[in-house]
């Protein structure tokens, strides 16, 4: 029995009718000019009223979604008089964030001689990393090279990426794959050991490594398990988000104030170096979009780093993933991995016709979906009014052979199967969903920032991907820069001469807000979204 209502099933009949013909048809890719046009007209980043410049701080004038700007300009949880004299704990390196970047950083900091404390908001591994399905890029096949990977990354990012960061990304990539494998990660392989590698949006070579469709989960649980094995040197503290960074009287980092989520108590953790790895901000629901992100993705790191003076960048571009689930209602916004298109499924409109090349860069693909629904009226509308286009998954079995979907996309089969939709037989309805924070705190190739002792890794950072990240480059980024920042932070912690911790920056921040007449009424970081019903 189909999990789709009758109106939607009618459209599915059209999709089925065109399927065999479409198997032989490739929709042409857009020229760079066509891409510009569709982005300008339909991508959410280009909607002027929904973006604004921030009015205070070192990156004053930087544009970002209004929801984010309100939080960045917020007031701290604690006052400048908060007592720092008796730290709750002391360590060489404090890692903030228990996702893939934080776990990688903790491991490398420990290997390089540091004692580490890792604090995280919810449980260790409740993170976007856990949710990644598609895979991780690395140029390790003979017909590929780091140079070709470099070009793909730059093109995907509209040539705005920081070259040194991209170089680090592509050159470290094969080493990261080897590192993960040595830690015991199970990559998809041919019987002779050859990695199974596929295309992703915007790649010119097949270099997407995967672990079925639990790629991120497999990375996360492997790294987490390894961190737990090193408990003598790495202490993990869960349900304790950081709310404010602490500097010393020389302007160097001196740790962070964390909040016990259950008791509401704030305490100071003193550290010689801090690695910020708090991930992205999908739960801010820019422009009301649903999101693929985990519950704790509220852009805390951007807020905290900015308040101590670290410059931000690229936050005017957010990534909307073209294929968020649009039906059923219970899973709207959740990711349908790009691998579905990588395996051959085409996006088609309500008449069963293609309207875009399946693997354009994400922003272009998403804008094309919005155009198909909003301008051309060729989308399918669900009973709750949600628009969407079809992703013709049954094609995969015809192209790649029966059983391919079950073997390669078990998470997707399960996700839709729970609601009576068999994706091997019926297409999935999809629409863009808020997915990734392209920008963030600016970093250098060694993971350092403008603030001495503050290192950064992962989705919270900005510069690696320019204005648009390609799939598979962020699982790569978190491991590459997690490792780099861990190594750098350990080395820094060994030689730094700590000064006296102070919260003078809070005083300065509050004064600046006042002088600029800025009051957004928000206390930030916000830590969790509020989904309780307003009555």
């Amino acid at each position, binding site marked *: 029995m189909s999990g789709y209502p009758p109106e939607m099933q009618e459209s599915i009949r059209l999709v089925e009718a065109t399927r065999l013909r479409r198997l032989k048809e490739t929709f042409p890719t857009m020229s760079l000019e066509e891409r510009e046009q569709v982005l300008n007209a339909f991508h959410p980043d280009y909607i002027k009223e929904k973006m604004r410049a921030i009015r205070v701080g070192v990156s004053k004038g930087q544009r970002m979604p209004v929801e984010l700007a309100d939080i960045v300009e917020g007031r701290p949880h604690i006052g400048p008089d908060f007592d720092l004299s008796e730290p709750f704990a002391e360590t060489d390196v404090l890692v903030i964030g228990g996702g893939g970047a934080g776990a990688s950083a903790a491991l490398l900091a420990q290997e390089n001689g540091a004692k580490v404390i890792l604090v995280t908001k919810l449980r260790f591994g409740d993170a976007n990393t*856990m949710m990644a399905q598609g895979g991780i890029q690395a140029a390790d096949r003979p017909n590929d090279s780091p140079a070709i990977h470099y070009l793909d990354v730059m093109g995907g990012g509209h040539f705005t990426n920081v070259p040194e960061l991209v170089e680090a990304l592509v050159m470290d990539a094969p080493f990261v794959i080897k590192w993960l494998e040595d830690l015991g*990660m199970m990559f998809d392989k041919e019987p002779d050991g050859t990695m199974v590698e596929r*295309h992703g949006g915007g790649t010119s070579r097949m270099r997407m490594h995967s672990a079925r469709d639990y790629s991120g989960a497999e990375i996360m649980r492997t790294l987490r398990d390894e961190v737990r094995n090193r408990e003598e040197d790495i202490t993990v503290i869960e349900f304790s988000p950081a709310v404010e960074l602490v500097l010393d009287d020389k302007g160097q980092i001196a740790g962070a104030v964390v909040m016990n989520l259950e008791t509401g108590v704030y305490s100071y953790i003193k550290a010689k170096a801090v690695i910020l790895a708090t991930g992205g901000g999908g739960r801010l629901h820019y422009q009301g979009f649903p999101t693929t992100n985990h*519950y704790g993705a509220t852009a805390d790191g951007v807020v905290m780093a900015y308040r101590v003076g670290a410059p931000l960048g690229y936050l005017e571009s957010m990534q909307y993933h073209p294929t968020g689930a649009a039906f059923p209602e219970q899973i709207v916004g959740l990711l349908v991995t790009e691998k579905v298109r990588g395996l051959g499924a085409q996006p088609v409109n309500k008449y069963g016709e293609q309207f875009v090349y399946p693997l354009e860069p994400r922003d272009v693909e998403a804008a094309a979906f919005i155009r198909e629904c909003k301008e051309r009226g060729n989308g399918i509308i669900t009973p709750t009014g949600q628009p969407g286009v079809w992703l013709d998954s049954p094609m995969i079995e015809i192209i790649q052979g029966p059983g391919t979907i079950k073997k390669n996309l078990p998470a997707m089969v399960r996700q839709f199967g729970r609601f009576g939709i068999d994706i091997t037989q019926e297409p999935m309805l999809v629409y863009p969903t808020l997915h990734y924070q392209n920008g963030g705190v600016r970093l250098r190739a060694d993971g350092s920032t403008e603030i001495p002792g503050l290192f950064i890794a992962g989705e919270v950072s900005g510069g690696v991907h320019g204005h648009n990240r390609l799939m598979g480059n962020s699982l790569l980024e978190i491991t590459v820069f997690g490792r780099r920042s861990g190594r750098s932070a350990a080395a820094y912690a060994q030689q730094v001469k700590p000064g006296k911790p102070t919260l003078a920056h809070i005083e300065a921040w509050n004064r600046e807000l006042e002088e600029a007449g800025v009051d957004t009424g928000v206390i930030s970081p916000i830590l969790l979204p509020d989904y309780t019903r307003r009555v």
Partner: protein
Amino acid sequence: METEKQSEVTEADLIPVYIMGKRYMVPPTLTIMKAMEYAGYKLVRGCGCRGGFCGACATAYRILGDPKLYFGLACQTVVQPNMYLAQIPFFPAQRATYDITKLEPTATTLFSIYPEVLRCLGCGACTKACPQEIDVRAYMAAGMKGDIATMADLSFDCIMCGLCAVRCPAEEAQYNIAILARRLYGRYLAPRSKHLEERLEEIEAGEFDVALAELKRLSREELVARYRARDIEPTEGPREEED
């Protein structure tokens, strides 16, 4: 703040559910997680990815008049009338500490790190509880035989939610044993990639340094031209028969 999208419901559509024994009226289309939020809970424990990947939201429930005990993920299970819900956001489980670089991928390793694997009774209570539809009993059986590869393969979709351990009469922490098997498999038993090793040697020998240095120096126009000129590897066609 935007709330998660929900369809409009009228009072008459609402159904009763019991959260920790207390009755709430909620829309019937919601997942257990969203129903709790609808009822006014701001979740701290028991909520992570909201997408079925992290295992934070393990839930046990009964339905009025039905003697069975059910299990599920709160973020993936739709409410039913008269559900009695209990979150199990944390369940204590034994976990061994080991140095993966110093192990051998053998039955002996598995049995010495987790001797309790041999205590499994084969009752299957774990399999019934697993929200990922994993045959937990089968992977434990593989573990008892010391078959690391099978244990790794069968347990692959495990999200470490802990529901199997909650049910186990032999007090196993199945998912912790399973991840040891997967790591042993990934590190020692999976065939190695020759092309990866070769690429590492090439990078270490500096073979791409010149090309990268050149690319970094290019002007935007030159870079764009290179990007446009790059050739795109064709997507895989149908697989060969013998494959």
